[in-house]
């Protein structure tokens, strides 16, 4: 805690009102999430998804996970969504916007999802005590460094997730190759 913060607290100014921020961000995430699956136009849906992603990124920030926030913005909002928009434009046909949005079995799908929701709700209601806020403060300033230590390990020692990290890189490589091969017209 630095002097400026102390002074701020002493002078009666509370830090940022976190509950408000949470409700606003959560509302944005859920509402635009709903728009993603209901909007007819794919580009509109993609824009809604970007709003969801950014809201969720902000929620990460509230959970003291700044590095995940950064990765979410760079990879998801900046990378994957541009890819999505790119593909939507490539396959942009007017026909799809005039057709039915939902498939024939949509009532069944909706029912299944409702069952899932009911499951979640019952789990939360029953297991409320499990999720009590334990109020563990995470060190925000060394967050990136600690994640790095877990991923890469410290001097002379392999990290806990180094092997998994390597496998993830292999997964990406395979995905790149797969994408290239599938989209290439002649091999």
């Amino acid at each position, binding site marked *: 805690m630095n002097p400026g913060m102390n002074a701020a607290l002493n002078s009666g100014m509370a830090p940022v009102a976190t509950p408000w921020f949470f409700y606003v961000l959560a509302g944005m995430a859920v509402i635009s999430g709903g728009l993603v699956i209901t909007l007819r136009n794919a580009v509109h849906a993609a824009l809604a998804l970007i709003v969801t992603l950014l809201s969720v990124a902000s929620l990460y920030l509230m959970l003291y996970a700044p590095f995940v926030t950064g990765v979410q913005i760079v990879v998801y909002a900046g990378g994957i969504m541009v890819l999505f928009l790119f593909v939507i434009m*490539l*396959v*942009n*046909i007017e026909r799809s916007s005039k057709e039915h949005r939902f498939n024939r079995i949509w009532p069944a799908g909706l029912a299944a999802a409702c069952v899932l929701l009911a499951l979640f709700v019952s789990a939360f209601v029953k297991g409320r005590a499990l999720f009590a806020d334990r109020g563990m403060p995470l060190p925000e300033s060394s967050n990136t460094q600690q994640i790095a230590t877990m991923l890469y390990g410290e001097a002379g020692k392999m990290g806990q997730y180094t092997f998994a990290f390597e496998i993830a890189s292999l997964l990406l490589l395979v995905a790149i190759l797969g994408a290239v091969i599938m989209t290439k017209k*002649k091999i």
Partner: protein
Amino acid sequence: MSVYKDDQTSDASNREHSSLDRSHLDLDTPDKTYLDSNELIINMGPQHPATHGVLRVILKLDGEKVLGTECVIGYLHRGVEKIAENRTYTMFAPYVDRMDYVAAVSNGLGYCEAVEKLMNVEAPPRAKYIRVILTELQRIASHQIWLGTHALDIGAMTPLFYTFRDREEILKIFEKYCGARLTTHAFRIGGCQYETYAGFEKDVKNFLAFFAPKIDEYEALLTTNRIWVERTRNVGVISAADCVALGVTGPVLRASGVQWDLRKAQPYAAYAEFDFEIPTGTNGDTYDRYLVRMEEMRQSMRIIEQAVNGIPEGPIMGKVPKVIKPPVGEIYHSIEAPKGELGYFIVSDGSTQPYRLRVRPPSFVNLQALDIMVRGLLVADVVAVIGTIDIVLGEVDR
């Protein structure tokens, strides 16, 4: 893997088809063997920054790759050839200036010489020398406009302003000589209307001294510029055989390796008396055409220098009657305009007006090569190739 049938029809064959067969190019119905939504038909022009006027090119694209083109012309059609039939030979002369309006002097030269040939008169030597000097100055000016706009199409803004700055000096000479800068109407049938003004030789020599380092300046900006070389080398390649088959002339033909220049092949005016070289290229690509034109500017300077040093004294007007009434007959006369062979075919019925006048404009003929030059290239190359063919729509549409 032969699941995708497209490759046989669209990509690989484009290069082989660089003959004149246009049957595979069907712009109206989409290619049935290839269900690709990427296939896009785009109108480039008539209002487009890079089509040098009102050329409309219908592009059939696969993504950015050009599958075929179709030129739509006529937006600047003024019926020049028809107008000729209702004007006397003298009255029609200013009209030819409006065809290739960036090389008006060359147009005038071709027309005047054609009528002279029809009437069997000849301009006096001094007039011929003046004609050569002005025409070669005009060639430099035309190439300057070509260079500026071509570079601008490829994205280099600066050469445009340099070339226009230097072209100004040529236009000043024109203005001092005949009062007009663009549509000069400099020559008359039988010679020249005006004697050179006092200090004409000095002005021309000053220009030569002024311009020599400027060409180096253009070349410093472009010739070894990596981006320029990458954008132009192997772009818009056309073989000598295709050029000949299509009737392409001028720098485009010479860049493909054919040493054909009417100034040497069928000398007119006073060209037989000068020593100059015909630059040729080897690959027939955009870069070669660029080099050929740059060298042509240098050769033009050589011609001008010789002409201005050896300009004879004497009359400037031949023995031409007041009313021009050529004998019945027909004539075809062509000159090497900056853009290629500019020919005039005149049919005379013995009256004061041509019975039929037909112009063979270099831009119009050269434009035919656009399709086989750009097929298989990208959209950006279409712009570069239109620039390198060096068309003027006033001449294409007439």
